[in-house]
């Protein structure tokens, strides 16, 4: 990336687009605006952006439909802009390939942190053998998890969950994504197991009375493993 990173903002509200432009340009992004889903897809195809900000309430196309079309040919990171009530819509968008979401009204700091997290994603195929955030460290090659330098013993399922969350660190991971990754494609209705194991995992890796926590619950959507710098 020689010069500025390009961000495409797809939103039908001109005012929101303009504000996002101000916030993003200040942080060194080159911003391209699109008013509709269709023109947004065209812009993405021609400009090859580094990140896409997509509003779910577009007039011409459902945001989820935009994502599905986009994911047929592009892996560009996508951040969803949505309201709190639309949990189901957000889950559908995340499962259709969006990388994360911010809830309106968002503040600039949160928005920029999310963008950084989804852009940080390693290029395809390249996986790191070691992960660290705050007091938690994971050695993927040896399947070793340490909290403040002390080894923590996790069951296979707990480790599986933590692994998926760590590989997507900083990003939200939906319930169904976790279930699919850890239990297999037929387990997407087994949410009770997910709740129990997440509860166990928390007890093992969170420090007592530590604020903020490492594992954050995204109500009605999924979980997020916080990156240390976001504290």
């Amino acid at each position, binding site marked *: 990336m020689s010069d500025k990173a390009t961000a495409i903002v797809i939103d039908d*509200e001109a005012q*929101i687009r303009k504000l996002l432009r*101000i916030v993003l340009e200040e942080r060194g992004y080159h911003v391209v605006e699109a008013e509709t889903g269709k023109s947004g897809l065209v812009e993405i195809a021609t400009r090859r952006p580094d990140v896409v900000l997509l509003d779910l309430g577009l007039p011409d196309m459902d945001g989820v439909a935009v994502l599905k079309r986009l994911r047929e040919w592009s892996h560009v990171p996508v951040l969803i802009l949505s309201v709190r009530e639309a949990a189901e819509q957000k889950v559908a968008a995340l499962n259709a390939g969006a990388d994360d979401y911010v809830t309106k*009204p*968002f503040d600039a700091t949160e928005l920029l942190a999310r963008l950084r997290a989804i852009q940080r994603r390693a290029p395809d195929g390249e996986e790191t053998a070691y992960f660290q955030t705050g007091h938690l460290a994971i050695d993927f090659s040896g399947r070793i998890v340490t909290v403040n330098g002390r080894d923590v013993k996790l*069951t296979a399922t707990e480790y599986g969950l933590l692994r998926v969350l760590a590989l997507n660190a900083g990003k939200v991971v939906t319930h169904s994504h976790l279930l699919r990754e850890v239990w297999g494609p037929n387990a997407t209705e087994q949410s*009770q197991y997910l709740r*129990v*194991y997440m509860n166990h995992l928390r007890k093992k890796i969170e420090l007592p009375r530590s604020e903020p926590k490492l594992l954050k619950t995204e*109500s009605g959507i999924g979980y997020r493993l916080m990156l240390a710098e976001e504290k």
Partner: protein
Amino acid sequence: MTVDGKDYAKQFRRAFSLGREFVWAGAFVVLVTVISLAIEPFTGYLSIALLYLLLVVAAGLKFRRVPVLTLAAVSALLWNFLFIPPHLTLYIHSVHDAMMFAMFFIVALAMGHLTTRLGRSQFLERQREQRTAALYELAHQAAFAPELDAGLRAVVAHIESIVDAKAALVLRLPDHSLGKIAHPASSFALSEKEQSVAAWAFSRRTPAGRFTDTLPDSEALHLPLQARTAVMGVLSVMPAKDHAFDISERELLEAFAVLIGLLLEKDHIAAAVQRAEILETSERLRRAILDTVSHELKTPLVAVQAGLSALEQQTKNDHAQNETVGEIKIAVRRLSRVISNLLEMTRIEAGVVRPKLDWSDVEEVVEGAVELAGDALSRHKLTVNIKENLAMVKLDHLLIEQSLANLLVNAASWSEPGTTITVSADVSGGELQLIVSDQGPGIPQEEIAHVFEKFYRGAQARPGGTGLGLSIVDGFVRAHGGSVRAANRPEGGAEFQIRLPVETLNENDLELDA
């Protein structure tokens, strides 16, 4: 009177057709006799008997019993009179001829009898076929009639044209009892006595009245209109004077009763489906309007808030400007909360709040609520009491989280900064209890009953509230089948308790890896 006239006409037609058969039979006898007279010199008188027998058999296939038997007798006598010697007398000379005559007489009568029976059974067969066809035709007509009344009128008219009777329909009322007034499609009105017989047939779901074992001295036959799920009414059939229904007519009437029952049921179901569709459409419409209004109200606010947060970054170093931005931010947040509350309340009142249940960890719900309450709790101490290893519960995470958050914000706004707000949660006996208590002044006794009312604000309320926060809690919790109540704690402070009926699941009931 017209009905009586029709009866006479029917009788007349029947008598007329019988007379016509006699005339035809006579004509044939004359014809055969003339032919016989012509050929007798060549064939002899015995062959003539066979000619007459042929005539009897032929007539038996075509005519009714009485004309045929009369024809047989007349043929025998004519044969005797004209052809058996001595001619032109009924006297028979030889024993041989007498035997021949007697046998001819018997054979002719027997043949006449048998062939008419054959003809009759053919006739009945044809009639049955016609009735089946009529029933089919009627079912078709009735099922596709645009209106129920037209369908019923068609059925009644059909019944009257096929069996010799008048028909009346008494339908079920919306409260599932039998009506008192016959349907307008009926062709006679039920007397009080017949009505009670009809009611009996309706409640017992069996035929009653004439030609049945129950109250056979009634004038009409009453058949319940049995449909798949319920009895939809009664078909009452009043036969014409001294007409008794035979088995095939009874069967036909019962088939009609079933048909009418199904017709009514179809109409009933169609009406219910239509009602459901209207409800669904209006709900969809309300949702759409709410979504639009919500979008239109929130979008400018989102722009303002995003703009402020950008401005905050830019004015970081200018204290005075930064303070101004901070004030605007607080005001916008307040406006945003008011709008959210109004929209949530509208959603509750429009009945579009539908809990989406999923397994949840109570701890996560509480954690989410605390986060949602956010800055409102920043100046209070918060204590969370959740038992270890609480069972998982099935609930709508977002609804309950929001409800609990509202209770927390409410507690914070009524108690002094620095005091403690306590959240406790417990699951027992299929019920989740969430309790929020504070160390504020408590709720004046006369206000306790009103705190969940819309726009109700306590006398001591601080500015900034909408009087909707607690109503929303009440609405959400109710939509979830639970209840919320307010009380004062004996040791001081207010306490709000949410009780939700929930499905629970213990960790021990799951198979977990070690």
